């Protein structure tokens, strides 16, 4: 049914917002321990829980309401200072946040709600929360109960609601708010105000022009009533007259509403909020005694109800403004739509290359000129399209604060996370895939990197260990570093283990980097004690595989006693690269442009796998041999010098064909085993070109050279 879709959309908004609130809550929980004055953060935590509870209620998600309510009660006591937010409570509240998150996930999957009391995990958390509510039972009853109820018994409020024109269009139905309101108390009287509803001719059937005057009897406080309308507060005007208000308050209300005083007076009387006599008297008194001054005073007082009410209103307003501000700045777009756009841009680039080729063949200068303008524009479109998918890495980094907090507790180490370069942007698809490998690296740094507190004291280091995450851009790549200030890698132990596992041939001299790289080999683990985090011998090799699958690479540097830095280098995007085309026989290969250093003429004696480059030895690979390209080498071959991770090597090719954009098409499964090729691309002519995987080729070149050197020695 159509209305299900409507509800789905709003529910989707709820889910997204709930997750954002949970993230806020988590961030605040994590920073609260470090703050001199944590009141702001505690308020933020409380607000997050409170808002989640409120909006869950709106959707009838009673399980979330029930659970969050208990957490909120505890937070309320924290806010009052009745309970201290110590480390244990922070951990408990983090776990509660996770639990709420899982309940939200369940809502998203459309699963039935599970009563947290009936669920073992939920019940356990609730029991632990309950402890914090019970410690001072007597004061708790007074402080946690809604303030309005403290006076005892239900009270009679008057609500005046006018919905804005866009409410219905935004997927909100005023009816559902009224239904929800009815769950908080009793709607004694409700008068629907049809005055603003025009005749059919003038009606905007999708705009809302309804208003309601409601006499509401409840035990909840004003904030709770306002909360009911939180989702529409920007789109509706809500005026609340508290219980026991003077008639003047109602007069004030009447004056602030569009319907005339007599009409409204009548409605208020119908609601039973004031009696006709009271109203009449009040209106007359006001008319008699210096009305100008009095109205001025009333206007000045407008909105100034009780101080706590004003504060609540201001907070609401600020929140409203904040959300609106960010809404103006950003638009949520389906990732699928973006992917489609980028695919199309890819096709556009191929098509432009094709048109270019034809233009060149026809030797029509004007056409070529136009084509080149077009190509420039397409390039700009490509850049902007890719930019759309760029996200800051900060959000990913921040997730690790929680990981570090939890893992440090688990390990009994005092570790903090330092984050820098959060604003560095990279492709969303890369961000999504880098989370797991980074998680592994961070856990590894904490588990193996940071030494025990005793060891740190021995070495004269601060008791608190630091794991740092850093990100920056470097020539077409993004570099992410995970560092620790721990003991560093033990070269000898790694080498010994490498020998034991048969990963290193005895007697071979290795650089530090080569030795350290061993820890990325499958089945390598030097942890003497196996903890439940790592040390299971799986992990680092998986990390490397995942990173290489993203066309990235990983390296490691370490200083004994000072710490270890793992550097992950990733391409900025997975979709399109600037490529340098080279020809071997009839085949065309593409080398990522940012790796091409220079091109030189091929000159080497037959049989040798290296040549001289300005006095340096340059190893090279003959692509013809590597890929078994048929045909004889051209009379004049060239070497493309490629640079990667600070090292250079050459690729021997027949022809240099120049720069061109390459839209990367993934290789089909059949070619998964082929090493040295990272993807394919379609040329303007329609031919397929293979994209060379330079890091892998370099590794092969080094292995070949190493083996040759070893054989020679």
């Amino acid at each position, binding site marked *: 049914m159509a209305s299900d879709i409507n509800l789905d959309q709003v529910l989707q908004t709820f889910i997204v917002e709930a997750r954002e609130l949970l993230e806020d809550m988590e961030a605040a929980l994590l920073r609260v321990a470090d703050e001199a004055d944590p009141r702001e953060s505690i308020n933020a935590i409380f607000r997050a829980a409170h808002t989640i509870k409120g909006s869950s209620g709106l959707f009838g998600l009673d399980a979330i309401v029930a659970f969050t309510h208990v957490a909120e009660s505890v937070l309320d006591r924290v806010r009052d200072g009745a309970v201290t937010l110590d480390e244990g409570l922070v951990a408990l509240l983090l776990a509660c946040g996770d639990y709420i998150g899982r309940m939200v996930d369940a809502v998203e999957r459309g699963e039935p709600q599970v009563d947290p009391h009936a669920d073992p995990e939920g019940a356990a958390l609730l029991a632990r929360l309950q402890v914090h509510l019970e410690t001072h039972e007597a004061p708790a009853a007074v402080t946690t109960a809604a303030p309005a109820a403290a006076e005892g018994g239900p009270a009679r409020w008057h609500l005046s609601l006018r919905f804005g024109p866009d409410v219905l269009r935004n997927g909100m*139905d005023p009816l559902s708010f009224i239904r929800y309101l009815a769950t908080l108390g009793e709607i004694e009287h409700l008068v629907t105000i049809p005055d603003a509803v025009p005749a059919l001719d003038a009606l905007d059937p999708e705009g809302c022009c309804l208003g309601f005057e409601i006499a509401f009897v409840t035990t909840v406080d004003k904030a709770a009533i306002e909360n009911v309308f939180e989702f529409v507060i920007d789109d509706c005007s809500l005026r609340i007259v508290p219980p026991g208000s003077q008639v003047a308050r109602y007069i004030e209300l009447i004056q602030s509403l569009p319907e005339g005083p007599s009409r409204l007076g009548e409605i208020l009387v119908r609601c039973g909020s004031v009696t006709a006599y009271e109203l009449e008297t009040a209106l007359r008194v006001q008319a008699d005694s210096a009305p100008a001054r009095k109205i001025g005073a009333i206007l000045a007082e407008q909105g100034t109800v009780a101080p706590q009410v004003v504060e609540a209103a201001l907070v609401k307003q600020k929140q409203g403004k904040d959300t609106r501000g960010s809404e103006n700045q950003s638009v949520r777009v389906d990732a699928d739509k973006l992917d489609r756009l980028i695919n199309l841009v890819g096709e556009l680039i191929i098509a432009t290359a094709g048109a270019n080729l034809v233009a060149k063949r026809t030797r029509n200068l004007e056409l070529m000129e136009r084509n080149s303008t077009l190509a420039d524009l397409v390039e700009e479109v490509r850049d902007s399209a890719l930019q759309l998918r760029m996200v800051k890495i900060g959000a990913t980094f921040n997730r690790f604060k929680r990981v570090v907090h939890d893992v440090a507790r688990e390990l009994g180490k005092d570790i903090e996370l330092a984050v820098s370069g959060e604003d560095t942007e990279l492709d969303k698809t890369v961000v999504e895939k880098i989370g797991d490998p980074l998680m592994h690296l961070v856990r590894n740094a904490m588990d193996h990197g940071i030494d025990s507190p005793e060891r740190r004291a021995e070495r004269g280091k601060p008791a608190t260990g630091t794991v740092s995450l850093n990100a920056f851009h470097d020539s077409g790549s993004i570099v992410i570093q995970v560092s620790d200030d721990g003991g560093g890698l033990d070269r000898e132990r790694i080498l010994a283990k490498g020998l034991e596992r048969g990963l290193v041939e005895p007697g071979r001299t290795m650089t530090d980097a080569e030795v350290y790289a061993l820890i990325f080999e499958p089945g390598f683990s030097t942890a003497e004690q196996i903890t439940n985090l790592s040390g299971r011998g799986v992990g680092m090799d998986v990390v490397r595989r995942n990173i290489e699958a993203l066309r990235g690479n990983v390296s490691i540097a370490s200083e004994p006693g000072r710490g270890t830095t793992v550097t992950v280098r990733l391409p900025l995007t997975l979709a399109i690269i600037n490529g340098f085309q080279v020809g071997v026989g009839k085949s065309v290969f593409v080398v990522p442009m940012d790796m091409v250093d220079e091109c030189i003429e091929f000159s080497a004696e037959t049989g040798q796998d290296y040549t001289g480059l300005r006095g340096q030895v340059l190893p090279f690979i003959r692509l013809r041999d590597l890929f078994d390209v048929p045909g004889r080498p051209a009379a004049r071959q060239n070497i493309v010098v490629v640079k990667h991770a600070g090292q250079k090597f050459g690729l021997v090719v027949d022809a240099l064909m120049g720069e061109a954009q390459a839209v990367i098409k993934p290789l089909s499964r059949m070619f998964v085993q082929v090493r040295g090729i990272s993807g394919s691309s379609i040329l303007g002519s329609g031919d397929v070109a293979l994209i060379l995987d330079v890091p892998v080729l370099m590794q092969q070149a080094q292995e070949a050279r190493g083996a040759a050197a070893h054989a020679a020695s």
Partner: protein
Amino acid sequence: MNSSTFRIDGELTIYRAAELAAAMKTALAGVADGGALALDLSEVAEMDCAGVQLLLAARRSATESGRSLRLAGRSAAVDEVLAILQLTGHFGDAVAEAH
């Protein structure tokens, strides 16, 4: 007879508000001056505020053009909404007439 019946099935909600507004206008125009239009809502499965608003607007149109509008039948869904908004009496007389 100078009375005709306009029957609404299924949803009386924002999704069909524009379509129904136009249809109601046509239906009202087809009623002679001084005549009455009976709205049969007995098959309405769902109604929201847009629906309520439509009924209010239709009634105003009818009144302004010297016609009248009555509800000739109400489904449970319509009854529930009218009860919440305490509009039962608003359209109730018409129902009484219809019976």
